[in-house]
């Protein structure tokens, strides 16, 4: 479903070049739960950003659903993100002024395709139920705990029915117990809704939720057996 071929990305830090990705090739299939491991600075976030169409590679090719997107304009990439991709951030990045329900609704406002109000409501209600926040639908993000906030972010990432959700260290801001329940939630959504998840983490204890595991080191990716 997503494929990368010889993808390279180099950053300039002052005069020194940092090769964040040194020719990464890999493939993710539908319904997988992919875990990206690796030390700090190894290039995990860079890889997720490129695969998630947030950025463009210096060279190499990226396909999404058989469509090559590596040369798309930023505007076109935004369209792809809106229709096919969801994000869960380490820092939640919820919109503080609106309540849980409205935060989850947000990606649907951005979407170009029309969705009926009724359909919207059922989708959001179902997701709120799925992440266990029925009692908090009318609360604002600042009234929630970290774990609850990340649940909102998960529901938000899923509301536009994306084919793939990228999560960059989704548990880094949470205690290990809460982190575990979040991963369990992702795993169950992966099981029940067949949503594809790709998450990056430092934490070896949560790798066991993955169906396939990759190791990143100095910009080079290698598959690891579970």
């Amino acid at each position: 479903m997503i494929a990368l071929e010889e993808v390279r990305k180099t950053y300039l830090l002052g005069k020194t070049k940092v090769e964040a990705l040194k020719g990464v090739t890999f493939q993710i299939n539908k319904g997988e739960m992919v875990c990206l491991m690796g030390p700090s600075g190894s290039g995990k976030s860079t890889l997720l950003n490129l695969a998630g169409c947030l950025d463009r590679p210096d060279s190499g090719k990226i396909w999404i659903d058989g469509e090559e997107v590596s040369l798309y304009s930023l505007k076109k990439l935004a369209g792809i993100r809106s229709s096919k991709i969801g994000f869960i951030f380490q820092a939640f990045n919820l919109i503080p002024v609106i309540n849980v329900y409205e935060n989850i609704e947000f990606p649907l406002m951005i979407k170009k395709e029309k969705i009926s109000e009724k359909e919207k409501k059922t989708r959001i209600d179902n997701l709120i139920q799925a992440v266990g926040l029925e009692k908090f639908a009318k609360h604002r993000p600042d009234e929630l705990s970290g774990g609850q906030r990340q649940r909102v972010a998960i529901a938000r990432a899923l509301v536009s029915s994306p084919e793939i959700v990228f999560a960059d260290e989704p548990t880094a801001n949470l205690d290990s117990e809460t982190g575990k329940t979040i991963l369990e939630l992702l795993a169950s959504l992966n099981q029940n809704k067949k949503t594809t998840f790709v998450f990056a983490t430092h934490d070896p204890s949560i790798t066991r939720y993955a169906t396939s595991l990759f190791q990143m080191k100095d910009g080079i990716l290698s598959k690891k057996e579970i």
Partner: protein
Amino acid sequence: MNTVKNFIKLSFKNIRRHPVKNFLIGIVIFLASILFLFNGSLKENAESAWKDYFSRTFTGDYHITSYQGLDRDYTLPSFTLPRKMISSQIIDYLDKNQVVYSKRIKIGAAVYDDKKSEFKGSLPALIGIDWEKELALLSNLKIVSGRFDPDLPNGILVWKEYADSLKWKAGDEITLYMKDTEKNTYPYSFRVMGIVNHQEGASLEGKGVIQMFPALFVSYQYLALQLGIEDNQAVEIAVWDKEGKYEKDLKKLAEENSLQYFQGTQGYGIVFGIVELLGFFGSSIAALILVILVVATLNLNMMGFFERRKEIGSLVAMGARPFWLVGLLLMEMVVFATLVFALACGFYFILTQTGGKGIDFGEMAVFFAGKKFTAGFELQSVVNGYLTILIVSFISSIYPIYLTTKINPVDVFREAEI
């Protein structure tokens, strides 16, 4: 449609969220709006006070003069009678609609000094009026010396300022040279029966650079007889129509008959340039406010922009297109500007209602024909003020909004981790 609704909804929520920033911008816009409304009122006060002054002292609310083609104003009478008098079409219209009006004969008369046997330099306007009608309508006129005598056919009333300049007193016999309908110039003698001045607007004396009204009033009938003007014909029609009900029609009729249409409010514009002065005054203040407004709000908007980078970054990550973001932020600006402006209007309206008997501008009262200033609520200045506020808000938010569309979520999230 739905998008707009969502934008408005979001705007309201976003406005509540940056209380300090929005309070500061709000205050600047609020004060500017009040000043705009006040400014409009300033001009309106001057206009209506002067219109009233002219209407009751001299010209009527407006008048139509038969100076064919000559672009003259009220202060410059012609020594020659016009070739064509006011058309019967206009008189008929006035009679049919029962408009309050008065026929006049106006002519420039040369003053002859019998003692020195020479002409005086200036050409005063000798105005033949229907005594009975006009002395009641010109309610701001006051005879300050002498008295009105209806039995004296060649009696004239002289504007005080002018009488003083020629040292005329009540009872004086004077000689004026005029051109009659046959184009012959003859001397005519008149008796000064009274000196007239205005009752209100006393602060005007000595303020004007040019002599205000070199005007002499005489009986319409007597003047018509002397000059050979047929009965019922007029050089000028003065109309009292405060609401301007017939203004449009009459203006059109005047044009069709190639007559000069003149409005009371044009009078002071020509004589003093007061409205221009106030307008200049007002626009200087307005320009200053606008500059301050743009700079202040631009600064605050920039602050707001940096505050919201992360949030906007996540909107972009979710797939928001630049166009969408611009729409959202512009709507926020419009909603905010509208809210504050409405608030300012409300506040200003309460001020006008509780303003009491008006403000005495002292020396500056000349701007308002010597009257007190009363803050009023002008629709025109509300519209102008709102448009200006919108444009200014737009100018000061366009750069921050442009920056917003350049936000790269990858950078923003990296920054956020620092």
